[in-house]
């Protein structure tokens, strides 16, 4: 459903992404992992159109989206949860969910969406998306905006970043549930072993290149136990 061909991205004479080729199948739960600075978030942002590649092609559901704007990609069925949820003045959680769904949804419908990310909805629905909410709350609301769109491809950029351990534990549970609820493919950028554990497939990025692609058990063993039997770019080649 998502094909990336010969993707390159360079800034300040540094190759952030170096000839990335990927073929992501439908209905998969994919985790992209790798050390800091390996290019994970850049890759996610390029798929959404937030960053613009220097060269390469992106095909989504057999249509080229390389030159589409962010909102055109959103309309074509891609969603993106920001690593740092964006705060607003005056825009409430309910407003945001109406914008995300493009419908004048009722408060009950909005509450149902919020309950999917473990928020007791009535407490939150009329609150502004600002600093009065904790990092964990903002993160879950961010994730709710993605879930509510129900798109074919949902990308989450480091959902664990900036949240406390307690919120993280509940977030993992929410992602386990999401696997069943979201129809389509989920791509999560993550460092967390526990998120890797729930993936169908893990892509390991290093220095802007795909280092390994494999089943979660193999990659986890490779990264965390230093016991690597996978070849470089195994599945990708």
């Amino acid at each position, binding site marked *: 459903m998502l094909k990336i061909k010969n993707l390159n991205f360079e800034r300040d004479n540094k190759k952030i992404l170096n000839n990335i080729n990927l073929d992501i199948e439908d209905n998969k739960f994919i985790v992209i992992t790798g050390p800091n600075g390996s290019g994970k978030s850049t890759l996610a942002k390029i798929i*959404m159109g*937030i960053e613009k590649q220097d060269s390469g092609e992106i095909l989504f559901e057999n249509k080229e989206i390389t030159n589409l*704007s*962010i*909102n055109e990609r*959103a*309309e074509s069925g891609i*969603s*993106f949860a*920001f690593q*740092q949820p*964006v705060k*607003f*003045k*005056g*825009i409430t959680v309910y*407003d945001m969910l109406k*914008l*995300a769904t*493009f419908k004048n949804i009722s408060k009950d419908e909005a509450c149902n969406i919020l309950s999917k990310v473990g928020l007791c909805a009535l407490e939150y629905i009329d609150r502004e998306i600002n600093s009065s909410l904790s990092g964990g709350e903002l993160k879950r609301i961010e994730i709710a*905006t993605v879930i509510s*769109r129900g798109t074919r491809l949902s990308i989450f950029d480091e959902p664990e970043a900036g949240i406390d351990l307690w919120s993280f534990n509940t977030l993992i549970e929410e992602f386990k549930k999401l696997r069943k609820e979201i129809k389509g493919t989920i791509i999560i950028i993550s460092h967390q072993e526990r998120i890797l554990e729930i993936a169908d497939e893990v892509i390991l990025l290093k220095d802007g290149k795909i280092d390994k692609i494999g089943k979660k058990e193999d990659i986890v063993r490779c990264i965390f136990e230093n016991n690597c039997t996978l070849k470089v770019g195994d599945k990708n080649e």
Partner: protein
Amino acid sequence: MNNTDLKLLKEIAGINGKINGAYNIRRNGKGIERHVTDNINIVTKKDKPGIDIHVKENTQNETVYIPVIITNGGIDDTVYNDFYIGKNAKVTIIAGCGIHNSTNQNSRHEGIHTFYLEEGSQTKYVEKHYGTGEGTGDKVLNPITKIYSKKGSNMEIETVQIKGVDSSIRETKAVLEEQTTLSVSEKIMTHGKQYAKTIFDVELNGTNARTHVVSRAVAVEDSVQEFESRVEGNNLGYGHVECDAIIKDNGRVTAIPAIIANNVEANLIHEATIGKIAGEQLLKLMTLGLNEKKAEEQIISGFLK
């Protein structure tokens, strides 16, 4: 009243058909309709243009409407309205001024409102300013609000000026006594070559007097806004002034804060932020499928909500 009158009344005071409560409607410098209730009396001033509004003590949850509309060009109207809010009364006052100017002459309204809040009273004051009309004459509004509050009273002010006012200087002065609260929420949007200035001057005189002022401003095209506030803490008390402004195109905003603590127990805060729409806010809404223009509209309408 003709259609223009009714449209202005709806826009500034939400009046649509029958009015529930006391009211006084002023058009082109003259009172045209008035209604009083058992608890709220409205009396014409004898020494100068304007009215006295008397709200009886212990009045509960009543509303007074005192809209002003100007539909002729070349009107220069100054009005003095005094509000006497009785002990423990709870009242909402809907003011506001709408100008429809289709001429080439300026229209100007200056409303000088003075509030005398008795002990334990609760007043909500809503003021909306609106201008319309295709003439080249300026629509000018300069409201002055003075507040004298006695022990335990509180006042909430909401002012909105979103469209069509070419020039406005809005001045609010308050003297707060013991255990009183003044909350102000102001929303202003200017465009074209409009100019809007706000002056807040609050003296926290009594113990535990509190004020909280939130001003949100959007200045687009070539418009200019100024925000001046002065909060003086003379006793144990709390003052918080927050000025947030979004600028676009050649819009300019100046925020001049002054917080003056004359007592060691005075706790005063001023926050001011001016800047263009945050790029990340636009990006977020675009990832939901809104194009840049619609994303911008949503951010501004949320900001001024």
